[in-house]
């Protein structure tokens, strides 16, 4: 497995860890009209979309593609 693929998979693992924002557990401050915990997870989902974009463009499993005859391309 290539190093860049591993780094991307590592990014996925990092995102999984960052989902647990325990430092904001009791933070009731409002920013832009929204509570911090909600704002954090909205930003988190934006970051996830960026990582997914990179994953699809840099590590797409082309070797799995199959033509209509059932053979791998």
């Amino acid at each position, binding site marked *: 497995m290539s190093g860049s693929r591993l780094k991307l998979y590592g990014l996925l693992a990092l995102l999984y860890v960052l989902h*647990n924002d325990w430092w904001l557990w009791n933070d009731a401050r*409002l920013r832009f009209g929204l509570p911090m*915990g909600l704002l954090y997870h909205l930003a988190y989902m934006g970051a996830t979309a960026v990582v997914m974009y990179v994953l699809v463009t840099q590590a797409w*499993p082309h070797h799995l593609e199959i033509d209509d005859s059932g053979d*791998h391309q």
Partner: protein
Amino acid sequence: MTLAIIAVYMAAVLSIGAFSHRLFQGTGEDYFLATRSIGPFLLLMSLFGTNMTAFALLGASGEAYHAGIGVFGFMPAISGLVIPAIFFFVGTRAWAIGKRHGYVTQVQFFRDRWESDSLGLLLFVVLVGLVIPYLLIGVMAGGITLNQVTGGDVPEWIGGLVICLVVLTYVTYGGLRGTAWVNTFQTIVFMVLGAVTVFVVFRNMGGVGVVMSRIAAEAPELLVREGNFSPVRWLTYSLIPLSPAMFPHMFMHWLSARRLENFRLTVMVYPLCIAAVWLPPVLLGIAGRLDFPGLVGGQSNSILVQMITLHAPGVLAGLLGAGVFAAVMSSLDSQVLSLGTMFTEDIVRHYGHADRLTDRQQILSGRLFVVAILAFTYTLFLFSDRSIFDLATWSFTGFAALIPIAIGGLFWRRSTKQGATACVGTVVVLWSYFFYQGWGDRTYTVGGSGVMAVAVILAASSVAMIVVSLLTHPPDDEHVNRFIVPPAG
């Protein structure tokens, strides 16, 4: 007026299903998989629409009413990471294997992969059993919605019945193509109407900032997670989004893709789609505490519809009611179709009835099975008062705990049929035990520790899969090569 709008919406859905029937080629593969012809946009809309259910709209708003903003991070935020990752790692491989071997259901794959009829039959029973609570939340949501948007004039049993009949009709006519088309239409409807609802309701209440400031003063516990979620429960619940890897209806939608490339769009935009759909119900559920304080338990399932009828009566209430119906039906249809397909392929055809029955008779047998399952689900609905969030969580727990067989089947050469059977058996025993223990307790965790049952069941099923596989005779290399594609360099 509200009823007229919903009736028009139902007619539109039925028309799309009927129109798709005109392209029907008369074969089983066309009915069940649209001849593997689905493009990127339809794939995204049908996968997303299928996954967004009454759980996302009524369940999320009902839960946010009690537990506040944490509901957004608890379920959709982690789903936005885990589900596209499942599509990327599992969905693409399932598609490749399915296309190469001509599979229609996941039971066919697992049965061939480990050369075990008994494992296939066990999985059939378990998967159908786990889909039933999932169906139940859709039927419940139909009943609640119609009841609430009509101010209680239409009893819940009629709403549940209507949703069953409409879904049954267009799935019967349109098969997977009809389901994909209708899902696309319905997904667009509920995404647009969700945004419109939040805009209208919050404008009516003075804006998001005003609403949140009032919440900070009147119900500040809704703005934090302290007291609503324990960190351990938060962490272990993040295993629940693994469940789509084992949804029978998700597997069928994967196989319907024309090309592997068609998954790309879904993987990339899925997190944004989830955010767009879950944010409105969570915000409305929190705001509901201001207008409808004091709701207890499952009563909050209807908070979204109550907010709509209070702040946006008339035409908009009808439209938004239709939006809720759209979300509900876009899942129910795929689940119903997958059950019919499984019965036809995994029971009728596999056990030798294919020679005695024509193609159309085999499909008819699947439809009759679906009618029986829906009738059973509807009967459960008439006697059930469980929370939608709670029911969905138990269903997802079972599916998520089965993921070792998906991973083992697609990635692990050394996995054996005994290991897979032990894994499924472990899930059945432990799921039944914890379901019995948690019955009636909305916040049940294992021994009150904060650990969700899914973590324990998944750990046990993984150990069963690994240990029993290693203790039993390894499968033949040549056979395994048919199912495991070597990794890219």
